[in-house]
């Protein structure tokens, strides 16, 4: 790749959100801002070939996008005689500022909170975040979520139209709304990560691209909101999970359980970074959901072997996690640690107590966990039934292959 091509690709990955965000302020519309950002990258290709790569590529692109946005608005004002109004001037802003001088405010947080506004459906939040904050194209997003391109395009268009028509504001929420609004943002980032990490239907277990985007986003949020412990917790959680990426599947792409993963191949620098972040995220009263999940991941990452893991510590963290996030899936994970601390019988009782929960009715890991505990108890017939049940529900090829293997194993024992 040419020097300019490389610089542009780098700028696209690192500065896309900054460029779009800078243009929204001038354009008053996220859709127009996005077009202006695209045009700025096209202009850069020619401009940089001619004049060389600028010292601050992000600033160059943001200025170019913003100028285009200002031009567009002027044109549409003269055409339609009215100005789209989306951005109320903020109290801390200098009057008459930003339009002509070259100081571009960092609006990336505003952009993220707009994309993840609760008035938008979760799928729309995810799609918009990938488009506007990460710079993915609609075909790329459609591929990642295994939907058709027209479906994804319609979803993105509808969401952009809603932002404009309903006047979803372009701002970071006030302090009293921040916890709820931030939770929505973190959920979107976490969803990107888990979708990439356990690709629900695809043939491979991990879609690396999506995982890396999620980690990038978490890093960006952590840099922009250094005082938010849950942001730090989320980044730690993603790093600690991603550090095990290479060992989660074997050479054939089959699933390898935590128990059997080659711990010497875990990414130590990533784990160390994650652990440092966990310590910071846990500091202070009442740690949140992501900090606690990251703490659990950190205990696993520190353990020399599966058996030598500090299971009582894990169980205690799950108890705390259940208090702040009473989800049946957390209950199921807690049941696994009960089995490790008090034996498979106790674990099975904990799993069976959850089986009534309708939210777990189509959750393959419930049946898979039951199957594993029954197998360990030597109740092979029941185990075989539970593996079959799990197989009916599992969608991912690598996970299905694993379950088939286990099913054959217990069948041989009957």
């Amino acid at each position, binding site marked *: 790749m040419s020097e300019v091509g490389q610089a542009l690709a780098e700028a696209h990955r690192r500065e896309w959100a900054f460029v779009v965000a800078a243009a929204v302020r001038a354009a008053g519309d996220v859709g127009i801002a996005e077009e202006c950002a695209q045009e700025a990258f096209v202009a850069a290709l020619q401009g940089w070939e001619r004049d060389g790569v600028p010292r601050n590529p992000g600033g160059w692109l943001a200025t170019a996008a913003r100028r285009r946005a200002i031009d567009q608005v002027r044109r549409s004002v003269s055409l*339609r005689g009215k100005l789209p109004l*989306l951005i*109320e001037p903020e109290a801390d802003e200098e009057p008459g500022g930003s339009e002509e001088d070259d100081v571009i405010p960092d609006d990336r947080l505003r952009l993220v909170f707009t994309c993840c*506004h609760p008035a938008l459906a979760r799928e729309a939040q995810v799609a918009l975040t990938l488009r506007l904050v990460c710079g993915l194209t609609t075909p790329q997003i459609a591929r990642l979520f295994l939907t058709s391109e027209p479906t994804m395009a319609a979803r993105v268009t509808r969401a952009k139209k809603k932002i404009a*028509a309903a*006047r*979803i*504001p372009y701002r970071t929420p006030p302090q009293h709304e921040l916890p709820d609004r931030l939770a929505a943002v973190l959920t979107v980032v976490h969803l990107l990560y888990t979708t990439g990490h356990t690709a629900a239907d695809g043939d491979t277990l991990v879609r690396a691209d999506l995982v890396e985007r999620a980690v990038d986003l978490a890093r960006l949020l952590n840099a922009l909101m250094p005082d938010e412990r849950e942001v730090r917790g989320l980044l730690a959680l993603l790093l600690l999970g991603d550090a095990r990426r290479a060992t989660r599947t074997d050479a054939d792409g089959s699933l390898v359980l935590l128990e059997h993963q080659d711990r010497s191949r875990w990414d130590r620098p990533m784990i160390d970074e994650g652990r440092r972040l966990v310590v910071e995220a846990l500091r202070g009263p009442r740690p949140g959901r992501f900090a606690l999940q990251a703490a659990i991941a950190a205990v696993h990452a520190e353990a020399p072997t599966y058996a030598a893991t500090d299971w009582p510590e894990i169980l205690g963290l799950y108890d705390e996690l259940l208090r702040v996030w009473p989800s049946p899936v957390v209950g199921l994970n807690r049941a696994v640690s009960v089995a490790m601390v008090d034996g498979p019988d106790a674990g099975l009782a904990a799993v069976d107590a959850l089986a009534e929960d309708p939210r777990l009715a189509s959750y393959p890991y419930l049946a898979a966990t039951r199957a594993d505990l029954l197998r360990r108890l030597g109740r092979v017939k029941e185990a075989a039934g539970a593996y079959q049940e799990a197989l009916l529900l599992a969608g991912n090829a690598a996970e299905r292959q694993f379950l088939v293997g286990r099913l054959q194993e217990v069948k041989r024992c009957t």
Partner: protein
Amino acid sequence: MAQYIILIYGDESAYASYTPEQFGASMQAHHAFTENVVQQGGKILSGEALELTHSATSVRGDVVTDGPFVETKEALGGYYVVEATDLDHALALAKLCPAPDGGVEVRPIMDTSGG
């Protein structure tokens, strides 16, 4: 400022069986709402309570039928048209709107003045 309509939906059977005291309390809650909107920097442009859906008549083309256009358990029972700075402001106002037997829907009103 933009305009939004707050559509109030609720279970009519609950509303139909209100005692006079409950009805009075409901009226009072709506009165308090109109004051709260002003306090929150919004403005109510209009608002009405509707008679129950069994009083509704629907017309499609030339065909006239008895009953509401869409049969739902939670029926449209009233509305407010409010002025708010943006959706967040409108949603904050909507959260104050009394809707004990259901909830409300917030819809932006189309600005047709420029076209």
